[in-house]
């Protein structure tokens, strides 16, 4: 067995360990509910592919989905691709994401089984999962809408997602690309707004454990949001249960109350300034313009204006 395959197996085992740990900690949930959520959570990380280095992970995942489809099968939901470093990583708007050794680089492929109008909660939930894990590890982090993770105003982690449709089977996959700056000791000058766990805490962190904890928590949160959707259907419109992703986001985000620049590309093409009021029930961001008018945005990005 290759070293990469061994690492993949090791990560699968660790993910399962943290999934069971997460479930065991949630004593406020009934046994039946907990077991349902755990069942969904365990989809994540059923199969892991590890690479010491790769160009980018999302194209690898896309290729695997299309390959399986052309062979007449479906790639199972919950597959994870993990790399020790990426040669051609990028963020949104084609921005470069510096991905040297010492970072955590993941791609997760899932069948989205929430109603389409609730897919936003996958993206928000991924951010909530990362922030929760970092905080439990003692690192004070905050979420900036939608799912950027910041430490003292600097970005330590980001999540991208794409939808991929297998042409023959018609199966849709959501791909989540996750990058966390873990033990990166310095950044190029053009990435002045980036930080790492090492820079923020002054110590090195175990990357595989962190990967496993983040993936396990993403699975758990996705399980929670599925349970919420199912409870909403059961309860009709009488008394809707609280949305666990929005609750988690509200607890961990410092966006509400910040004056922000908004834009498709808030760095290079800012569109307007506004006051962030909070998150809307569909995950959009409520902004108050200088005219006093309140609007909601569901795309684009924000940057904080420091006062």
């Amino acid at each position, binding site marked *: 067995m290759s070293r990469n395959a061994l690492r993949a197996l090791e990560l699968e085992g660790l993910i399962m360990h943290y999934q069971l740990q997460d479930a065991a900690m949630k004593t406020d949930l009934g046994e039946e509910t907990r077991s349902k959520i755990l069942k969904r959570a365990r989809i994540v990380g059923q199969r892991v592919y590890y690479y010491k280095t790769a160009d980018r992970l999302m194209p690898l995942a896309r290729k695997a989905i299309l390959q399986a489809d052309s062979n007449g099968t479906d790639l199972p939901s919950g597959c994870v691709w993990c790399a020790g470093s990426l040669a051609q990583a990028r963020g949104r708007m084609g921005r470069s994401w510096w991905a040297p050794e010492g970072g955590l680089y993941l791609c997760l492929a899932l069948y989205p089984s929430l109603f389409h109008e609730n897919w936003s909660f996958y993206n928000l939930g991924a951010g909530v999962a990362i922030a929760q894990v970092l905080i439990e590890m003692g690192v004070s982090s905050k979420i900036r809408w939608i799912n950027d993770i910041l430490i003292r105003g600097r970005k330590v982690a980001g999540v991208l997602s*794409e939808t991929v449709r297998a042409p023959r089977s018609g199966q849709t996959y959501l791909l989540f690309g996750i990058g966390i700056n873990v033990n990166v000791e310095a950044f190029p000058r053009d990435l002045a707004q980036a930080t790492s766990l090492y820079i923020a805490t002054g110590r090195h962190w175990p990357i595989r454990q962190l990967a496993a904890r983040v993936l396990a928590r993403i699975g758990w949160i996705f399980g929670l949001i599925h349970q919420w959707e199912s409870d909403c259907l059961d309860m009709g419109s009488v008394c809707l249960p609280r949305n666990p992703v929005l609750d988690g986001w509200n607890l961990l985000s410092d966006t509400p109350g910040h004056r922000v620049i908004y834009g498709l590309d808030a760095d290079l093409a800012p569109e307007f300034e506004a006051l962030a009021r909070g998150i809307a029930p569909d995950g959009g961001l409520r902004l108050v313009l200088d005219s006093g008018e309140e609007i909601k945005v569901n795309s684009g990005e924000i940057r904080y204006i420091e006062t």
Partner: protein
Amino acid sequence: MGINLNDLLRHYRSHIFEDYQVETPHTGVISYKVQDGQTVEGPSGEWLQRPGTLLYIIEREKNVKKMYTSWNGQVTGIRPDLEGHFVEAGEVVLSIRHRLDKNEIIDRILTQVLNILRAPQQARYFLSSDISAKLGKHPECRIAIEPGDEIVIMSLMKRDTAISYKEASGVLYKVYFRSGDIVEQGSPLLGICPSDRLQYVQEVVQRIRTDWENM
């Protein structure tokens, strides 16, 4: 082809105006800021960032909302009985009579001739990198589009979804949005002209340009 150009031109000559009904977005007390017959202007500026003419104000529990026109035209159908009164959501409070210009006529006819790809939901849209690169190099070129081609990327909540073309093969004839625009659900994104109709479409456009000058 199924389209008679003469019939279409006759139709638009006799229906040169379109009436847009303006409805209240929610309940509240309304106060008109325009009068019947008044000319109003739609949003302006490169990004349509300047709102159109203020039509009315609606106030609900001390929250005042200003409602602007989205179209150029003339105000019709003001309802004096509603002035200063409480109205329900969805109440038609006035209409805007908009005179179609030549390009709007062409657009309306093209939507009947081209295969139109519409926005599946309100989101930001981008041309696929392949099409974007080709148009960047040769803005006037006719790009061949095949069924299954990923032609547009929809971006919503940091999730990118590639949208594939599903109709018959053709060439990209019209792009209805600017890369990165927020497009409303159902609005046209791209117009694809089946190859066998291309010459006909060009004749249609030329005919309208000429005929409309003579009206």
